[in-house]
Structure formats: C-alpha cells, structure tokens
C-alpha cells in the first residue's frame, strides 16, 4: 500500500513540477499577491490633499490654516478665491477636502462667540472621509484650545495656569504607528493558503476526470483511499511550503514583527490546511469540468475571505451576517495569524480558534472523502 501511495505521490509531484510554468504557478502568484497587498492595502490617511478658501483673511484665520499646514495629515495644495472652485477640484478628484472660512470669522472669535469652520469632504470613499474628518476635528480642537488659552491669558493672566483640561493619551498596543500593513500582511497569508490549496486540489482531480485519465487510474490496483491521499498530500505539503514562503516575505521584506511561537503557527496552519483540502476535494466531487471547479471555488473562496474579517471588521457587519461568519474556517485562522504576529499570545488564548479549525477540517474532510468515494463509482 505504501509503495502504491509513493508512486502516486511521485506522479503527482512530477505533474505539478513538470515545467517552468507549472512550477511558477505554485509560488509566483502567491508572492505577487503578497507584494501587491503589502504595498497597496493602506487605509491610513497622511497628507490628504486639501484646498483652503479663506474669505476672512485675518490673522486669526491664517493662524487656523497654519495649524492645518503644520499637521502631517493634511497637505494644503491650493488656496482658492471663490466657492465655485471647490466643487470643480472635488469633481476632478484633485482634493479630498476643502476648508472654508467665512468673512467675519475673526470678529466672532474676538467677541467670544463660536466661529464656524466649514469643511467639505469628498465622501465617495466613506472611510477616507471619516478618518480625515476625525483629524480635522483634532486640529480644530488644538486651535480652539490655543486660542482659548491666549484669550484667558489676556483677561486674567494669573488664572491661566490653573484652568483644567482633560486630555486623551492614546496608546495603540501591538502596532504603535497604526500601520495598515501590519494588519493586512498576516491576513494575506491566510487568504493565499486558502486560494492555493483549494484550487490546486480541486483542479488536480477534475483535470483527470475531464481528460479521461481518471478511469485509467481507477483500473489500476490503486485503492480509493490511496488515490485520495495521493491527491491531497502533495498539496498539503505545497500549502505548508507556500505558508512558510509568504510568512518569510511578511517578516523579512515588510518587517512585520512576529511575536508568537512558530510551533503554534505551524499547528494552526496544519489545522487550517485540513479544512482547505476538504473543501478542495468537495468541490472536485461536484464539478465535471475545470471551469465549473474554478467557479465553485470562487464562490467559496470569495465569501470566505470577505466574511473572515480579513479586510473589514466583523463587528461592523450586520448581526445576522456576524453569526454566519462562525462557519468560516478562515475567520479563525485570521485571528490565529494576527494574534501570533502582533499580539504574541499562545495556545492558552488561541485554543478556541484551534478547536474550531480542527472541527471544521475533520468534518469537511470526512464528508468530502465519503462523497468522493461515491463519485468514483
């Protein structure tokens, strides 16, 4: 039996590594995706392109604008003369936000009234708009604080030092500069393993069926279990290799810290791979052609990635959808990856995720193997 499995494995590996193109397919696409994701997936906002329309043109209004030019979050690109230009610049996509100070701004300030600062934001991308508005509020508050302090200093010099104020001291843990890359790079590892292993496994079986070589194999003395092992073990190993490769890129190239234990990561990857292999086998039992296999694979992989909380927080999804995400094995793997990379926690915290992945893997593999054996009859 072992001998037959070995031959089967050799055959599979020859097929997979046959030529340059197929070898490239195993490692090229994941690498490219990792690099593109690492560089392109940024949600933080720095140097948002800003235009200023100052209709007051006083020392106070210029002071307020200076607060914005000094901030790393804004890049004042244009100083406008009338309101129409704002619309045009935003329409052309040249600026994300515009600050408008009306005439009479300084006068209101001097009288001790509340002076308005108008902000116009292009919110076609709602997240950019939200983050930028948050920064506008911070800069505005700093200006207000400074101005208040100045005025107080003039009115009652001796009281200045004792006016109370409450300040927030934000301390981001695990990712002190709040870099998106640190969030996305560990997540991409999970996505890529899922994509690679599910498609490779499903295609390997369906291709034989489509070309007609499946019948040829079935008339050889190989047993079904041996055939299934032969079709899964290579991709299990390739999946592990891919995981190691992309994790190395994440740590060495993108400098995302890895704070957990490699053994726990390996355990998590193995448990996750079981489920991915199960899904790949399952798809192969319901597809007659490679096109069908690919589309079915896509229908599983795409929601699995979106619902895993890879790009957007699960807590922001509607409640009914949040419950659905518990069925997604990638959800657990994402928690494992991010916790190991950034938080450096161990099995004592991650055991529920590990258990969920193991359960999914065992059930999925069992169902697939049973279905697969039937489909061979």
């Amino acid at each position, binding site marked *: 039996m072992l001998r037959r499995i070995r031959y089967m494995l050799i055959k599979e590996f020859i097929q997979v590594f046959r030529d340059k193109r197929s070898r490239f397919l195993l490692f090229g696409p994941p690498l490219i995706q990792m690099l593109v994701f690492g560089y392109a997936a940024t949600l*933080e906002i720095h140097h948002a392109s800003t235009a200023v329309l100052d209709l007051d043109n006083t020392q106070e209004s210029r002071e307020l604008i200076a607060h914005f030019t000094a901030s790393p979050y804004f890049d004042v690109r244009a100083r406008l003369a009338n309101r129409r230009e704002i619309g045009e610049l935003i329409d052309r996509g040249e600026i994300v936000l515009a600050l408008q100070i009306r005439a009479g701004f300084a006068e209101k300030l001097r009288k001790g009234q509340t002076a308005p600062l108008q902000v116009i934001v292009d919110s076609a991308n709602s997240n950019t708009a939200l983050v930028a508005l948050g920064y506008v509020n911070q800069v505005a508050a700093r200006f207000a604080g400074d101005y208040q302090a100045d005025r107080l200093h003039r009115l009652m010099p001796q009281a200045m030092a004792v*006016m109370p104020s409450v300040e*927030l001291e934000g301390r981001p843990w695990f990712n002190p500069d709040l870099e998106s890359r640190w969030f996305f790079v560990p997540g991409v590892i999970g996505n890529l393993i899922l994509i690679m292993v599910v498609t490779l496994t499903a295609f390997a079986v369906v291709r034989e069926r489509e070309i007609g070589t499946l019948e040829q194999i079935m008339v050889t003395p190989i047993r079904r279990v041996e055939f299934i092992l032969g079709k899964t073990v290579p991709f299990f190993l390739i999946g592990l290799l891919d995981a190691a490769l992309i994790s190395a890129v994440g740590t060495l190239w993108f400098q995302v810290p890895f704070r957990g234990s490699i053994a726990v990561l390996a355990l998590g990857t193995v448990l996750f791979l079981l489920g991915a292999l199960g899904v790949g086998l399952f798809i192969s039992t319901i597809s007659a052609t490679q096109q069908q296999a690919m589309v079915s694979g896509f229908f599983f992989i795409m929601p699995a990635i979106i619902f895993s909380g890879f*790009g957007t927080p699960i807590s922001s999804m509607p409640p009914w959808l949040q419950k659905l995400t518990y069925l997604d094995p990638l959800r657990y793997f994402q928690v494992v990856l991010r916790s190991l990379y950034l938080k450096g926690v161990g099995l004592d915290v991650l055991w529920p995720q590990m258990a969920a992945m193991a359960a999914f893997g065992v059930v999925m593999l069992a169902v697939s193997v049973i279905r697969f054996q039937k489909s061979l009859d």
Partner: protein
Amino acid sequence: MTRKEVIQIRRDARSLLIVVAMPVILILTFGYAISLDVKHVPVYVFDREGSQPSQDLLKHFQASDYFNLVRAVDNYPALIRAIDDGSCQLALVIPPDFSQKLQDGGAVHVQALVDGSDANSATLALNYSQAVIQAYSAQVQLEWLSLRGQTGAQPPLSVDARTWFNEDLESVAGIVPGVVAIVMSVVGSFLTALTIAREWERGTMEQLISTPVTPLEIMLGKLAPYVVIGMFDIALCAAIGVGWFHVPFRGKWSVFFGSSALFLMVVLSLGYFISVVAKSQLAASQAALIATFLPAFLLSGFLFPIDQMPAVIQVVTHVIPARYFVSIMRSVFLKGSPLVFLMNDLAALAVFALALTLLATRAFKKQLG
C-alpha cells in the same frame, strides 16, 4: 461560431446559473460585509478613582453610539487579558487623582489603550474617543470659567462638516461602484480565460483552426456571448445597487452603459489574451485572477485610496484599467459630474480596449504559426 459558443454555455446549465448568481452574490456579500465603519466598539473601563466626575466622563462615552461599555475592571492584568483575547478593543484608564487634578487645574490625562492590530478601526476608535474627551474638556472649562465670572463663555470654534456625494457616509455607496468593476473583471476574464484554454487542452482548437475561420472571427465568436452576459450582469448590479442598497444614481445611464461596454471589451480581450498564452486552464485561471480580479480589488482605488499608496504603486495604477472604470462609476453613481470630467478616464479605457484587442488577435495568430 457564436452559436456554437452559445450552445456550449447553454448546455452547461450551471454556467448559466452562475452568470446570474455571480453578480447577485458578489454585490450582496460586498454590500453587506465590506464596511469599515466602526460602531459599538467594546470598551473596558478601569476607573481608578470612581468619583462623581470620573463617572460623569464615562457617561459621555456611554452616550456615544460608537462605544459600548461592556465591563468595568479593577486591575491592569484583567485589561491586558481582555485586549489579548480580543474581547476588548479599547480600554479607558482614569487616573486615581482625576477629580483632585481637575480642581487643582492643569492637564489631566485619561489613558486609552487600544488594540492596534486592526489599524484602521483603532484609528477611528481613537478619533472618536478624542472627540468625546474634547467635548468633556470643553464643558469642564466652560463651567470653570463661569464660576470665575466669565459668564456666557462659548467654545471658540465649531467644525461644520459637509460630506459631499455620500451624505450619510455609507460604506455601501462607495463599495457598489467598485463591485461593478469586480463583477465585470470576473465575468470578463475568469470565464473567458477558461474557454479558449479548454479548447487547447481538449485539442478541439486544432479542429477549429482547420476550418476556414479567421482568427478575428474566432475571437469575435468566442467573445460575443460574454458581451451579452456582461452587459446583462452590469444591469443587474446597477439594479441591486440602486433598488436594494439605495445607492444614489446621479449620472446618465448612457454614460454608465457606454463606459461599461468599453471596460467589458478591455477585460474580455485581456481574458482572451491570457487564455491564448496560458493554454492550461489552471494557469489561465491563476493568471486571470492576478491580472484582473486582484487589481480591480486592490489598485482601483475603490477601497484603498490611491493617493495614499507608495509612489511606485501609484505609477502602476495608471496601467490598471479598473482604476479608470471605478472613477467613472463613482462619478456616475455618486457625483453625477458632467461628461467633460470623465473624458480622460473614458479615453484611457478606449486606448486599453483597442490595444488589448490587437494584442489578443496577434497572440492568437502567433500561437497558430
């Protein structure tokens, strides 16, 4: 030729279902699941003082829609544990001398420990906490001033924000234009890339070539049904976006369908080109994924703002057709800007469509020779 392709698609009943189901499923998953908004952040509180003013500050957090005060703890290890296992995203620590310091004057610091592993949510949560603290601080200061005879004091500055195009800052309004591009990429490249690759793999391509059909005719015949499917899918996307998710549609339908047809030509020729070059279905599917789906998702600017990417990547986005298409879709759905503003994007798409069609037919001829 076209009829052959139509028959082949129709025979495969599942493909037909996919053609309808794919855009529906894509737009529903994206529309519901892709939201970067942060609401009801789970907050733990470590109030080291437990006085009237400290509780007053916490009430401000409680009143906010963005926070959900789930638990009060009385030691640091409990906080650390909660942040580690993810049950708490933001922890507020109020110093033991909070009210004393408020009376003495000067700055009092409230700590916000935030789980930074999700950088974007952490940024938003910190921004919101900042806003709450600022409001509280302003209130404390005004009270302090009025106690000292500065009655009628008002906060010096107010920010009056107007959000254009997407007034309620709904994620889904920005997502739908991007989903349209993704659906087109998938239908255009995934499905077509496999058709030609399949003929090579099965050896039926040689049969086709031996008939007196020219390469251009083969290509047109292969692609025509997918044009129809693509246009149908895009109409479906728009219908769901506007009808179900209530995304506004402020532009012209003619621009919508015209630019979609152009973009469809781009992705179809790209898919065709890939399939001619790749030959195996596995290779074709991987290549199509990298060449169309991934850029449409990552580099088109629908989710990740292009101007925040590193300079090199920004340059790369100029050769991503989806970038121009997403910009047009945004404008058609949300901005309704006049056609003049779209000319550049439309021209870029036209150039891509032309160049890729030429490239695909030439590659096919070469493959035959």
